[in-house]
Structures are given as structure tokens and as C-alpha cells.
């Protein structure tokens, strides 16, 4: 390891002005967080349709509207993070298809467009696509929107994988984390949105998804935390920012506790006590905590000098 070389050479940089470090800051965190909720809600709505379509009544339009709002928050922050936001149209007129940014921008735009059509159909109660009513149309399109939600969720992991300079962001780990972020926040959001429209059994079903998503995401983060640095010195140097005395150590653990550990405990408690209030608290914490988790993981690889 290079650490041994350091001890021998006592090499110290005495003149170098590296370029400013954090380029993707909290706007990108907002982007990932909002997208997780937006696509996660679609996944959960589809699961609800398959599990108990009757409970969809009264939930289709509000859930899709909330998903649509979060997808627009995601798009807004994506746009705001550009240094030349008025040139965003270049992505559509000069697309470069090897870039996950391009592919993602196209898919997310189509996804949001389809969501808009579904909401409009429900509000105007218009039937189309050979369906008998707007509800049947909604349910038919939901299948395709759910399929599209998978790559829309995953493409950010593709961007992170293409960011060759940031060793911490690996595929397929980031893909797994993106999907788990969507199932975590999607289940949390539908528990909160469902209110009295969802039966206790269905709420516990979504609670189980929330708890399992938190558990799996936590296991992956801990695996990287403990073992990540053993094969790559760059990863080890990055993870030092969240280990003892690291600049982001406190924030990292706050995120892990609020997003994963406490919600897991609360979900278990809610199953034992059959308490919807405890489940709602778990949902709120998971949504809030995920923002912190994503932010730390986004920022720390950018702190490492590249030259």
C-alpha cells in the first residue's frame, strides 16, 4: 500500500492548487432523493394493484400526483445544478448516447410525460387506448410506467459508474442502492399517503418492504464501510472521511441511524404492537434519513485530491 511509501519518503505537497472539490453538492442530493420517492411511489402503486386492486380506489390520482411532483422536483434540481441551464435542450438535440446523463434525461422526460397523461386521464375521466374507463386506462399504463421506472431509478447509478474518478461509486452496488432507495422511500411515502384508505394488513405489507429495504441498504453500506478499503487504496482514503475523526463521520452515522436502523426497529415494533403511528414515524424517518445518507455518499469521493 502507498501508505508504506509515505512513511519512507515523507512526501509533502508544497505547491499545488487543485481545482475546487465538491462540484456535485446538495442540489444533486435533492435530485437523487426526490427521484427515489417519485419512482418508488410508482413501484408501490403497481404492487398495490397486484396485491389488492380494491384499495387503489381513491389512491390512484393522489399517489400519481405526489410522484409527479417529486419527479418535477428532481428535474428542477437537475436543471438548477447545470452551469448553463438554458442549454438543457442540447441534450435532446445533440444527444450523446454513451452518456448515462443523456439516456436518463430522455427516459425521465418520457416517464414524467406518461405520469402527466395518467393524471390528466383520471382528472378528466377520459377513456382511451381501447379501455372502458379512465381507471382501466390508468391501470393499463401503470404497468408500462412501472417498467420505465426501473431504468429511471437506475440511471443515476450509471452516471456514478461513469464517473471514473470516484472510486467509491461502484456498479452494481450503486444500482442496488438506487433500487433500495426507491423501495424504501416509495413504501414510506405510500404508508403516509394511504391513511385510512389502506387496510392495516396492506400497511404492514408496505412496512415489511420498508424494513427489508432499510436492512438490505444498511448491509450494503456496512459492507462497503468495513471491506471497501481492503482492495482499493483510493476507496480506503475516501472512506476515511466517514470513519473515526473523519469530516463526515457524524453525518454518515446520523444518516444510517435515521434512514435505516431506527426505521427497522420501528417497523418491528409496529408489527408487534399493531400501531400505525409507529409505522408512520418509521416512514417519516426513512424519507428524511435517506437524504443525509445520499448526501454523504455523494460528497465524500469529491474531497479526495485527484492530482
Amino acid at each position, binding site marked *: 500500500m502507498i501508505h508504506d511509501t509515505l512513511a519512507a*519518503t515523507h512526501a509533502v*505537497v508544497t505547491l499545488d492548487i487543485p*481545482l475546487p472539490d465538491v462540484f456535485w453538492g446538495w*442540489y444533486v442530493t435533492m435530485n437523487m432523493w426526490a427521484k427515489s420517492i417519485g419512482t418508488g411511489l410508482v413501484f408501490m402503486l403497481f404492487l398495490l394493484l397486484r396485491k389488492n386492486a380494491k384499495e387503489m380506489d381513491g389512491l390512484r390520482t393522489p399517489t400519481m400526483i405526489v410522484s409527479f411532483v417529486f419527479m418535477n422536483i428532481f428535474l428542477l434540481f437537475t436543471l438548477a*445544478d447545470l452551469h448553463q*441551464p438554458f442549454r438543457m435542450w442540447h441534450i435532446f438535440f445533440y444527444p450523446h448516447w454513451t*452518456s448515462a446523463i443523456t439516456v436518463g434525461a430522455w427516459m425521465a422526460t418520457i416517464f414524467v410525460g406518461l405520469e402527466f397523461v395518467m393524471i390528466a386521464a383520471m382528472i378528466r375521466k377520459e377513456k382511451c387506448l381501447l379501455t372502458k374507463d379512465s381507471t382501466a386506462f390508468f391501470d393499463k399504463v401503470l404497468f408500462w410506467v412501472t417498467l420505465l421506472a426501473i431504468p429511471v431509478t437506475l440511471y443515476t447509478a450509471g*452516471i456514478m459508474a461513469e464517473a471514473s474518478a470516484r472510486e467509491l461509486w461502484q456498479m452494481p452496488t450503486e444500482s442496488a442502492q438506487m433500487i433500495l432507495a426507491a423501495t424504501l422511500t416509495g413504501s414510506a411515502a405510500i404508508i403516509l399517503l394511504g391513511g385510512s384508505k389502506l387496510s392495516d394488513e396492506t400497511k404492514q405489507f408496505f412496512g415489511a418492504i420498508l424494513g427489508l429495504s432499510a436492512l438490505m441498504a444498511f448491509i450494503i453500506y456496512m459492507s462497503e464501510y468495513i471491506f471497501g478499503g481492503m482492495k482499493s487504496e483510493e476507496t480506503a482514503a475516501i472512506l476515511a472521511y466517514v470513519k473515526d475523526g473523519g469530516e463526515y463521520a457524524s453525518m454518515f452515522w446520523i444518516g444510517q441511524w435515521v434512514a435505516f436502523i431506527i426505521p427497522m426497529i420501528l417497523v418491528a415494533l409496529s408489527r408487534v404492537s399493531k400501531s400505525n403511528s409507529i409505522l408512520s414515524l418509521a416512514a417519516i424517518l426513512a424519507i428524511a434519513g435517506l437524504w443525509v445518507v445520499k448526501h454523504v455518499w455523494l460528497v465524500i469521493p469529491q474531497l479526495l*485530491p485527484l492530482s
Partner: protein
Amino acid sequence: MTEGEYMQLGFLVDLHLCMGCKGCEIACKVENEVPLSTWRLRVKYVDVGTFPETKRTFTPLRCNHCENAPCERICPVSALHYIENGIVNIDKERCIGCAGCVMACPYGAIYIDPETQTADKCTYCAHRIASSMMPACVVACPVEANIFGDLEDPASNISKYIQRHRDVQVRKPEKGTNPHHFYVGASQVNLNPLASQREEGYNLFNKITHLPLGGHHE
């Protein structure tokens, strides 16, 4: 096919010769009107050893014009693109300033120009090459430590230099980028950012302030 399609331009810096005068850095700044607080090319100083057995090393750092460039791959609008002589060039009019290239470049060679709010980097002075001139940094180097030429031509200075020397290295070969930028006489201290410490107070210039870059950062 034109002659240019066969040409693959590359750079080699002989660190045995480099004396850290920063002439290349200044020439680049002037030639390309690089704004304050940003650099297309800079020379890193690393001090090695403990007093009195110390020495100072100098490493010019610029875009590596990789054959498999992560910046070109991630750019959503092809603002970063290859030109036929192997140079990774940038179209600042097309750039949307997403900073994807900044995140992708393993060498930290790309910056956001605070004046145009677009990505920018060393282009091997593509505009000078188009007029059959050498890059500004090559011309300015008083000891000819910068060797520039066609890697595909076995008779070029750079090809001969590579053939003559056994210690030709690139930065971060494990990234699989196939840089068109080589170093002779380099050690880990020169090429690996993790091989030296960055201690506050040791820098010759401390508390450097950067111009605001727009967008949103931490």
C-alpha cells in the same frame, strides 16, 4: 483518408529535465486566456525526505487526452469530443455545464470556467496545431522537458524518446483510460496523489480563494 486520421498526438514530460520554473504554466495561461483561479496546466511541487536530506520534485499536470476518455463518454451533448489527431477537444458553445466530465476525469484536469460557466481543459493547443505550431507550453519550456508529437510515427521525437527510455509511465494506468500523456523519470510521489501528504500550512501559497463558479456547491 487524410494524413491527420492516422496521427495520434501525445505528450511526454521528462521529469529529469523539468526544473519547476512554471514557464509552461504561464505560457498556457497567456495563450489560452485561462481565467484567474483555474488552470489548464499546472506544476505540482512535492518535497521528499526529511531535513537535511530533502529534495523537491516537479510534475507538470495537464489533460491526458486519453484514448478511452471517461470525460468524452460521460458528456451528454458531445461537447467533449475526439478530433482526428487524437486530441480530446471541447466545444464550449455546446457544453451545458453539468460537470459530468469533472466527475469522470481521474486526473482532475477539467474545470468549470468561471467566466463562461462551461467545462474547459487543456486541448494540447489544438488551435496552434491546426496552424502547424507547437503547443505554447512546449515552446516556453527552457529545457525542452516537454516532448510533443505523433505517437503513430516511429520517427517522431516522442516515439523515439519512448523507445529510448525504460521508465516511461502514465498516471493511474489502472483506470484503463490509455492516456496519451507520458512521464519519464517519475516516481509514485509524482504520479499518485495518495503518495504525498497535503498538510495545511506547508503550501507555499495558503488560503487560496477561488472565483465563484455558479451552479450550486457545498
